[in-house]
């Protein structure tokens, strides 16, 4: 009994859906804007705190955890899969693992939760924010790093170490890797010249290096229990800074911006804010050189500016660049979607729906189990998608609905 | 008139009217004595009404104690009369004639105390009518209400019907208060028609009353047996209780007979043979009772359900061992040893046995009600039940009041049925001869 069999009914349904979407949009839009204006920490659709509630209330936390909070029988979604995931990649990961999750739920006789699109947007926002958080470091590693990176050749930590560099314990109360990198960034040219003078290699910080260092330095300071935190950053301000400090002249975000430097939306850039900042530090000498070459003044940042800037970049990284309709169409056929999702097919025809990652994730959860079951009956394997493929597919599906066409997954 | 002649009691039976017509001083003393207990009971009850059942020794989980024991005991005794008299009547046991009335009166009077015990036990006696207003027919207690009220009605009628001719005698004798006898006499003239009517009615009632009586005590037992509580939930409780009831009923009858015989000098009417026969019946019941008790406890023991065994051992060797073994001695050892031998089946012997049986049967009810409740399935604090003066007072008061009312009855109505004795003397002897003859093979030569 597909919708096409009863045109008047689906027409009415669609109309109602459209009207309600319109009404919801009219009602929600100001609310969403108000939220982001009032210091919603991220520039991504959805409210991470509400997403967290969904994560716990809908039972995700029964098996999954985030940064150690929650169940233990399924992966920690803040840590796995490794690397940075945009919204579309989150969806792809979810899509690919969905059948095994449903299977596990069936064994434990838990019925899969239902999500609205809003829930899913919140959940995505939550996961994305949590994935961008740094975890407290390992002081033992930090101590080794401090030696390996030859920090103590210049810096002191209380009584140990020496040289002309400032006492690192001064910053012991700073808990946020971003503020450390900011302080380092501003002094990078001076440090660089000292280092070259002493023949010390420019230290590169990989993975959780910076938090590890912070953790170790914190141990050394008896007054560290009064911490200094960073306030949540403002991506809007970050966007301004990105423009004003001239970052855009070299860096591109997606397709917009300069081409002299890496695309900041690149998938290979690290997952957390602190690591992202550290990557910036790692490239500081190179950037300085190319800035000097292009005669661009080297930007200095305040603590807040640095945080805002990174927040802006992370907000941008949430979205994938627009997909390719043609590739999407091919995928639709190749993965076997078209076999069912066609006029008169067994599945609903998808031509009148516009998709975003969160909407697609919501429908995956709401209809997926049934779909999976009927696929199993027909011995069709569950299709798996590579991250880029999902964007293409969404682009293709959305392209078929002219009026509410979504662009690049962004609402 | 022919009837008039018949109505006048045989002069040799005048004796039976004596208690009604003349009262000795000792009667009043004894009556006052009993009434004193009644007053105590009444005060105890008022106290209980005012403060609630807290004044009793009941607690959690022993929610039922003396009152319900009394209830079962009194209802049990009520089987004395009606059932025994009805069975004897239907069997044409001719020795019954002088004892039926005494038995029937016990039934009717004691039923009130049975019902009274339940009312004593209610937390809200003022809401008693809720039983009629919103009855729940699934409750064994409501079955009790029905069967007891039917039983009360039936046994009252059954007492009253054979009383009518005697009332008429009293009426004609001018006994006071005259209006009472005139009113109750119902214009009895001992016409043939009336007699036929009366005999038919008595016969019908006798047949009716037996199943009712059995049902009553079965239902009383079901109050316990229909729950799932250990050592209550038993399928033989019905017959077990009925046997126990008849057992205690006969015993009380023997005691009452002995008292009447002694006080009103009715040695001519209540003869050793009566005691002997009732004693034999009592012996049979004692054996039956033992059989049931044995069966009940043996099955429990073999069933080995832990929750049952806890109750079982609390009776055999635990907190309730003393009442249990006293019960066993008084219900079985004493009566059987006294009644089994002809030498001890004397009036004294049967009376001793009967008193002992009555004590024993009260204890039997007690050891059925309380041990089960004090050993609930879940290990709560085990209840320690000991009655307060209120319960003891009401129990004793009930006994005393029962005896007082019985005494009162003997002052208004002949306790030995005059007309039945007469009838026995005049008609039964030839009847028995005919009947016995009918049992025998037909004689080939007709006798003269």
């Amino acid at each position, binding site marked *: 009994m597909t919708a096409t069999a009863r045109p008047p009914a689906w027409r009415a349904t669609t109309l109602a859906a459209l009207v309600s979407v319109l009404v919801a949009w009219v009602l929600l839009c100001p609310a969403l804007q108000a939220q982001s204006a009032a210091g919603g920490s991220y520039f991504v659709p959805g409210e991470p705190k509400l997403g967290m509630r969904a994560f716990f209330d809908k039972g995700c936390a029964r098996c999954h955890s985030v*940064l150690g909070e929650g169940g233990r029988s399924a992966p920690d979604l803040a840590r796995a899969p490794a690397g940075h995931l945009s919204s579309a990649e989150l969806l792809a990961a979810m899509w690919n693992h969905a059948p095994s999750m449903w299977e596990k739920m069936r064994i434990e006789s838990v019925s899969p939760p239902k999500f609205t699109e809003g829930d899913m947007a919140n959940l995505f926002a939550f996961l994305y924010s949590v994935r961008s*958080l740094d975890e407290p470091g390992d002081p033992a590693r930090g101590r080794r790093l401090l030696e390996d990176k030859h920090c103590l050749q210049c810096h002191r930590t209380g009584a140990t170490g020496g040289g002309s560099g400032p006492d690192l314990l001064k910053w012991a109360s700073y808990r*946020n890797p971003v503020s450390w990198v900011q302080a380092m960034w501003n002094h990078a040219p001076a440090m660089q010249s000292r280092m070259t003078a002493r023949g010390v290699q420019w230290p590169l910080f990989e993975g959780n290096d910076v938090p590890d260092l912070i953790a170790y330095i914190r141990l050394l300071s008896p007054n*560290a229990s009064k*911490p200094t935190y960073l306030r949540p950053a403002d991506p809007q301000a970050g966007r301004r800074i990105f423009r004003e400090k001239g970052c855009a002249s070299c860096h591109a975000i997606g397709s917009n911006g300069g081409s002299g430097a890496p695309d900041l939306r690149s998938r290979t850039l690290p997952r957390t804010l*602190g690591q992202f900042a550290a990557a910036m530090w790692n490239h500081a000498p190179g950037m300085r050189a190319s800035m000097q070459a292009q005669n661009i003044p080297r930007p200095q940042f305040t603590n807040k500016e640095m945080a805002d800037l990174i927040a802006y970049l992370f907000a941008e990284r949430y979205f994938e660049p627009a997909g390719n309709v043609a590739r999407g169409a091919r995928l639709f056929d190749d993965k076997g979607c078209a076999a069912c999702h066609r006029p008169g097919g067994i599945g609903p025809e998808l031509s009148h729906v516009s998709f975003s990652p969160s909407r697609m994730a919501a429908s995956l959860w709401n209809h997926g189990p049934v779909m999976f079951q009927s696929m199993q009956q027909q011995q069709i394997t569950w299709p798996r998608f590579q991250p880029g493929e999902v964007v293409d597919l969404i682009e293709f599906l959305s392209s078929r609905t002219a009026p509410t066409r979504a662009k690049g997954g962004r609402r | 008139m022919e009837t008039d002649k018949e109505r006048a009691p045989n002069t040799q039976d005048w004796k039976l009217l004596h208690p009604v017509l003349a009262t000795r001083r000792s009667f009043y003393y004894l009556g006052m004595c009993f009434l004193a207990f009644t007053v105590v009971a009444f005060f105890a009850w008022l106290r209980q*009404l005012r403060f609630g059942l807290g004044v009793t020794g009941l607690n959690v989980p022993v929610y039922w104690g003396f009152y319900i024991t009394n209830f079962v005991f009194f209802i049990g005794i009520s089987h004395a009369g009606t059932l025994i008299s009805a069975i004897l009547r239907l069997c044409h046991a001719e020795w019954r004639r002088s004892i039926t009335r005494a038995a029937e009166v016990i039934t009717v009077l004691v039923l009130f105390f049975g019902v009274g015990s339940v009312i004593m036990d209610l937390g809200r006696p*003022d809401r008693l009518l809720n039983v009629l207003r919103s009855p729940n027919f699934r409750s064994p207690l409501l079955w009790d209400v029905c069967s007891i009220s039917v039983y009360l009605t039936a046994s009252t009628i059954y007492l009253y019907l054979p009383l009518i001719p005697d009332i008429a005698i009293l009426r004609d004798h001018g006994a006071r208060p005259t209006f009472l006898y005139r009113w109750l006499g119902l*214009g009895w*003239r001992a016409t043939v028609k009336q007699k036929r009517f009366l005999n038919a009615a008595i016969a019908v009632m006798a047949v009716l009353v037996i199943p009712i009586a059995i049902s009553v005590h079965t239902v009383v037992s079901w109050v316990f047996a229909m729950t799932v509580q250990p050592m209550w939930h038993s399928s033989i409780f019905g017959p077990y209780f009925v046997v126990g009831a008849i057992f205690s009923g006969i015993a009380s009858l023997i005691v009452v007979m002995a008292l009447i015989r002694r006080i009103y000098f009715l040695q001519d009417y209540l003869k050793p043979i009566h005691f002997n026969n009732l004693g034999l019946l009592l012996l049979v019941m004692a054996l039956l009772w033992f059989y049931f008790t044995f069966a009940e406890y043996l099955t429990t023991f073999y069933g080995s359900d832990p929750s049952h065994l806890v109750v079982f051992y609390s009776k055999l060797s635990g907190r309730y061992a003393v009442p249990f073994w006293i019960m066993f001695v008084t219900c079985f050892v004493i009566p059987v040893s006294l009644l089994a031998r002809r030498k001890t089946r004397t009036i004294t012997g049967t009376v001793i046995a009967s008193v002992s049986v009555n004590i024993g049967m009260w204890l039997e009810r007690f050891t059925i009600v309380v041990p089960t409740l004090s050993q609930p399935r879940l290990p709560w604090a085990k209840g320690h039940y000991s009655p307060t003066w209120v319960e003891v007072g009401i129990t004793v008061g009930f006994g005393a009041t029962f005896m007082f009312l019985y005494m009162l009855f003997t002052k208004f109505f002949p306790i030995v049925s005059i007309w039945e004795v007469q009838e026995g003397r005049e008609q039964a002897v030839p009847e028995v001869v005919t009947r016995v003859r009918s049992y025998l093979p037909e004689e080939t030569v007709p006798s003269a």
Partner: protein
Amino acid sequence: MTFEFDRRSFLKFALGGAAGTAASGVSLKGLSDLNAALANEQVRVPTGPESWATSVCTLCPGGCGLRVRLIGQRAVKIQGNPLHPVNRGGLCPKGVAGLQELYHPDRLHKPMRNAGSRDNPRWKEISWEEALGTITGRLRGLRDGGEARSLVVLDRPRSGLLPRLQRQFLAAYGSPNYLVMPTGMDAVQAALRFQQGITEPVAYDLANSRYVLSFGVNLLEGWGAPVAVMRAFARWRDVASGRRTKLVQVEPRFSITAARADEWVALRPGTDAALALGIAYALISEGLYDADFVREHTFGFEDWRDAEGEFHLGFKSLVNSEYRLNDVSAITGVPADTILRLAREAAQNRPAVALGDRQTSSLPGNPYAAMAVHSLNALLGSIDLPGGVLVQQALPGSNSDSERSPGSPPPALVLSAGELPQAILSRRPYGVQALLLNQADPVFSMVNGDEFRRALREVPFVVSLTAFLDDSSQLADLVLPTATALESWQDTGPPPAVANALLAISPPVVRARKDVRHPGDALLALARSLGDKVAAALPFANYEAYLRRQVDGVFAAQAGAVFGSNLEETWDRLMERSGWWAPSYSTSEQLWEQVKQQGGWWEPAYSYGEWARVFRTSSGRFEFYSQALAQAARQQARAAHTGGSAARIDDRACLPHQTVLPETSSNFPLLLLVVEQLPLSGGQGAHLPYLQQIAGEHLFASWDSWLEIHPETAHQFGIEDGAMVWVESRRGRVQARARIYEGARPGVVHLPLGYGRATGSPWACRGANPLQIVEQQSDPVTGMPLNSGTHVKVYRA
């Protein structure tokens, strides 16, 4: 004729039936009337609009958050505040029963003056003005006479800001003597002081522990913040978490905690130290201990030589020589393989934490045993790490300067409340002229209560702040009635054993039902009327204003969060862990409003492994060999041999060790151990019927104290269950009902704490106070009491 007979009979029957029914109807109606006339049972419950208010519980130091249901002006129900991080909506029975304290019939109505003598008090109600005037006059007199230091304040254990206010008051007035009643954490706290150099309250990250070895700690019977412990306990056994934390309870008696534990290790009373050292031996000999931690962060593990080249015994040598498994098994009565198994399990299930030693709130455990237990934590590497022993975070804004008097403060009279009566009686180092009991009842709840009784008689001026008349206020000159939790502003700080900094503040929920005041209000009023420096130091109109000012300090810390839901807590913690702080307030005013509404502010994240903060010994490490103790011992030795500067001290006195148990005597063949139960935890709560009803539930012994005795022991001494018996020690005897309990150790009897007041609500005066007969020795080096039970005899009353 027949017809007539029939009709007549029918009519008569009918009439009779009708009459009967009517009669019975009338009589039932009569019964009902009689019933109504004899007992009027209408209980009218007034209704009104429903509302909810936030408050905090002050019945124990746990300080749970409350939500109070109000119908009109009546508080009708106390529930847990779901936003409060300590209890998260749950509440212990004590908190729920707090409602009865508000409406208690025996509460004090007005301030009272003793118009009679100390021995024979006659109480006369007076006004607050008069009462405060009297105190002001007295205190002025003392200060003007240069005897300000002779004022002593004895407080009950509490968290929150009131201790701070009292210290500030005393500092401004010129007295160093702020004392607090013992909490039962004393032994552990001593271990922390000797081995970590820490005086801050100890805390445990119980929720994250995977193996908990409790040495006599009554975790589920009122220890620490009871609800927080119960929540941790529930987390240990949360199936969803996929693993279970093992709780091992080491205790001679089968307590509720032992019953709920995964394993109960029954040991000989007073031998906890030996068992802990036996486990330490097993850990060391099997190489299961955290060698990294021991190497990096501890001192005195191996044998060592000091600066003067003198040899000192190390912890390892000590346990290897004296606490081998068979020796320990012989001392403790615990099989050697059990000890070995415990050691292995603890080593394999980290984080593992060891708690103890402790007896009850009034009887601190043995400090050496506590050191032995704490040494296990060091061996297991469970100090200041998740699931281990932590040090409580300080409340921001605690400005210790304002709590100290300007210039050099006079020397404190005594160090602990227990020593106070001796000081009063001996007038050394100086006499006590005035004593303020702030909701403290030492006569009832201290072991040396009779000494206190004598001492209080010696003090010229005693003021007692209390909601109920008690044994100590009976000896006071003035009794000031205090408000109950729901009637006044309340605040609590981080509860015992909880690591996170916390400040809960709540406005009054109902109007005061009597002429009562919060101690803070009384103290501030006193400060005002004393004028001068005291008034200047505490320029607050009332306690609310004081609290408001303290919140400024919290705001200035720029950290933490207002109480929120579980989710918000997690969110805030995740954020703070990675260095972000997203407060829900931007001004101090907003913070104040939110705190009042939600219940408080706290710091959801704890920074683990800050060694510099948690090891403040002279070595900067955890000290198996306590150098602080060594110093104390050296000083003592020096004092003993006057001039003998090179006094040699026994190394064992500075290391954890099993102390010698008191000799048994044939006159007193049994050992008495006092037990604590949740409803009357801390010995408090006997005045509340709800709590009396549920106390002693394992024996169905409500409303009365009982003597637990093992069936064999009972048989041996001819004692039956339920019999009244005398329990007699060298100090005296008390009467209690003997209860046979399988969980009592043969040869050991138990009396519960909290019963047997002499004065106060008749409900609280039931049963016997075991502290009256408890004996205590004190350790020569530390001066701390060693509790290892009291020898008693038991005989029928």
